[in-house]
């Protein structure tokens, strides 16, 4: 069997398939975790593990990625399920945004990629900034009613929390304990059913996002004129950050990979690279479509604009204290 000859028209297909083969195992992993959560995690369990008050709960949620390192593709189905299991919206969003950055695998890859270019500083700045922005986003999300943020389909799956008086009663007669009473086979069927449904759902959006990213990347991004334009603005203090954020958005890289892609670049400033590394794992083309399985279009639009501005502005803050950071941590 002979393969089609490489041609510019087929470049997107090759890129598409390679991202698909890279990402699909993680989407499946996330969906299986979601199925397990659906079948076995009692409703409201996450709620009880987290601190009672909103702020500490959100602060802790931002660190969950350290214990459960999940990359950005796998986390979306998991988050959807956790929200339905009663995880407060603010905590869920913070976890979703922070986990692909505040996690040991990503920290290590950032460190490795920036070897010889202030690795410690770059890694800490990325993780720190990602954490703070995720917490801020979570606090903002927690101010809104779930019904104005979440898609109806996600909302509809939210279980009612057990009433206050019942929770203390060792679970008897409430919705807490019974999961254990159910035969294993039944839970298993439920888990696989949910996993399959979540996989198919998420995969549809993933495929759309990846297809667009592949086309833009192979047909537009490396056009010499565009590249010249990028090189021209690379030195511009105000525009270089947004340019790299836009690049992160289009390229839709995995958060464990992106540091390697940008570290070797020597046109752009450290601040712009940091913006790339913080923005990309929180929002890119594939994530935009994946998030649309959780968030309402309007909420998603506001979130995207807000995140873009926040990362942009945060970059200046980090840049301002960079010399100080370098002196003390470099």
């Amino acid at each position, binding site marked *: 069997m002979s393969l089609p000859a490489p041609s510019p028209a087929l470049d997107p297909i090759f890129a598409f398939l390679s991202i698909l083969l890279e990402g699909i195992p993680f989407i499946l992993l996330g969906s299986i975790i979601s199925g397990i959560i659906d079948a076995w995690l009692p409703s409201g369990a996450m709620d009880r593990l987290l601190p009672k008050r909103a702020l500490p709960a959100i602060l802790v949620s931002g660190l969950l990625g350290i214990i459960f390192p999940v990359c950005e593709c796998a986390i979306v189905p998991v988050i959807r399920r956790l929200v339905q299991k009663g995880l407060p919206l603010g905590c869920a969003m913070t976890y979703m945004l922070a986990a692909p950055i505040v996690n040991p695998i990503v920290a290590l890859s950032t460190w490795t990629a920036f070897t*010889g270019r202030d690795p410690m500083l770059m890694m800490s700045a990325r993780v720190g900034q990602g954490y703070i922005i995720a917490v801020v986003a979570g606090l903002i999300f927690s101010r809104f009613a779930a019904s104005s943020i979440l898609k109806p*389909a996600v909302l*509809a*799956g939210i279980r009612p929390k057990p009433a206050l008086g019942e929770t203390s009663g060792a679970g008897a*007669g409430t919705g807490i304990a019974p999961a254990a009473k159910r*035969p294993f086979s039944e839970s298993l069927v439920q888990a696989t059913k949910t*996993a399959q449904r979540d996989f198919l759902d998420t995969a549809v959006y993933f495929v759309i996002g990846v297809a667009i990213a592949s086309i833009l990347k192979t047909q537009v991004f490396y056009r010499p004129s565009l590249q010249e334009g990028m090189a021209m603005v690379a030195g511009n203090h105000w525009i270089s950050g947004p340019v790299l954020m836009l690049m992160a958005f289009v390229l839709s890289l995995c958060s464990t990979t992106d540091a390697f892609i940008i570290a070797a670049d020597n046109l752009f400033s450290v601040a712009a690279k940091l913006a790339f590394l913080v923005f990309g794992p929180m929002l890119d083309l594939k994530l935009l479509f994946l998030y649309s399985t959780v968030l309402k279009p309007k909420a998603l639009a506001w979130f995207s604009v807000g995140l873009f501005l926040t990362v942009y502005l945060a970059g200046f803050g980090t840049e301002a204290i960079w010399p100080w950071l370098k002196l003390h941590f470099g």
Partner: protein
Amino acid sequence: MSTESNSIPGGSGHHSPPPSSGGHAHAQDHGHSQSQGGLEAVIPVSASTAAAAIAHPHDQSHSHDHDHGHTHEQKEQTEFTRRFFLFLEMTVLLLWSVAMVWFYASGRIDKYLVGDGTFRIQVLIAGLALAVLGWFNWSMRALNAGCGHDHSHDNHDHDHSHAGAEGGGCGHNHDHGHGHKHGDGCEHAHGAKTVAAVGSACCGHGEGPSDKDNTGCGHNHDHDHDHGHAHSPGIPHSHEGTVSGRAMGLVLLAFSVTASVALTPDDFSDAYKKNMLTAYASQPAGSQAMPEAIKVKRDTTGGGKGGGLTLEQVEKVQPRNKDGNFEMDVMQLYYSGSDPEYAKVMKGQGVEVIGQIVHDSTNPAPNRWRIFVLQVTCCAADARPYSVPVEFTDPVPDGLKEMAWYKLTGKVDYTVEKNGGASVLRATGAQPALRPRDQRTLF
């Protein structure tokens, strides 16, 4: 920035109504009962039906009779649709599974994902897992039909204890205590908290189970209506589970994997590679440190006076070949300029390097070429070219073909660029070569 904000409403707007369900049977099942057309007639009465359920939790036969006329046909259709979709889903999963396992088994995966890490084996494992998942869910289709336990077990579970595992999820419908529980749920449905209302309303979302359970499920249908009702206040109807939406999603998944597998050339076009090359050509390694992975190992024992690196030390860790040349790869050569000590020792030494060659887009002189490799971090889509300028000092060998693989022989030199030292190969010879099998260069 304007591009950014534009793309978002555009992107998401494009996808409402989204092609597939919200990820749980519930939305889908709901969609089914809606789409069957029986609901219009029932919605007006559902409030009173639910109210009746609360007021008379034991009075199941009442609500049962109420709507049975509609639901019998509807249910058979729904059950057919459900199984049909389950079959389609399995087909899609098997399709993906076959593609992934085949790519792994045939070795074609090597062109897509790097050998470092676990990327390739992940494809095999995920491919097999998809097949198992699809097959398992299909073979459990009778059990899956369940009377709504997929979303509402928190309300139901106490009843499940006396439901057998085999299709038994439905036995509990006859239980009176159960009716009571549902009543509770419905109370919420009429309560103030919308979210809670919807959540609990899902206690009735189960569509009819398999045919034999008809009698048991009248009750469930009662709740189906509550469900539709509970959605109406505050929360708009979700069409995520519409039959056409789900079908479109499945078709997209089947089509995308089939088309891309059929059409993929397993490589990028030369035009694209050249574009990438041009984009990065203006970026010599300069002052960048060499990545640890390709750093020239050095023997620190017996260093030269003052700790400097000596030629003897380099020879020790990097022996010359029979022609007296050092064999380097393009990455090493590219980065060697960033290590001043190493560059000082290597300057003027004979080397051999294998890579693809192209005319130098930054220098039109006929003897100026570039030798490059595409380096990949995870998948082919993140490929990045690393190139070193080549200057043929002797007459340029005849018949050099662009984009072909060559082994170039010559001497290393370093020029001073604004960002630091950049490597140049002063080439004297070129021989066609095979592409080296490297875990990170895929092409």
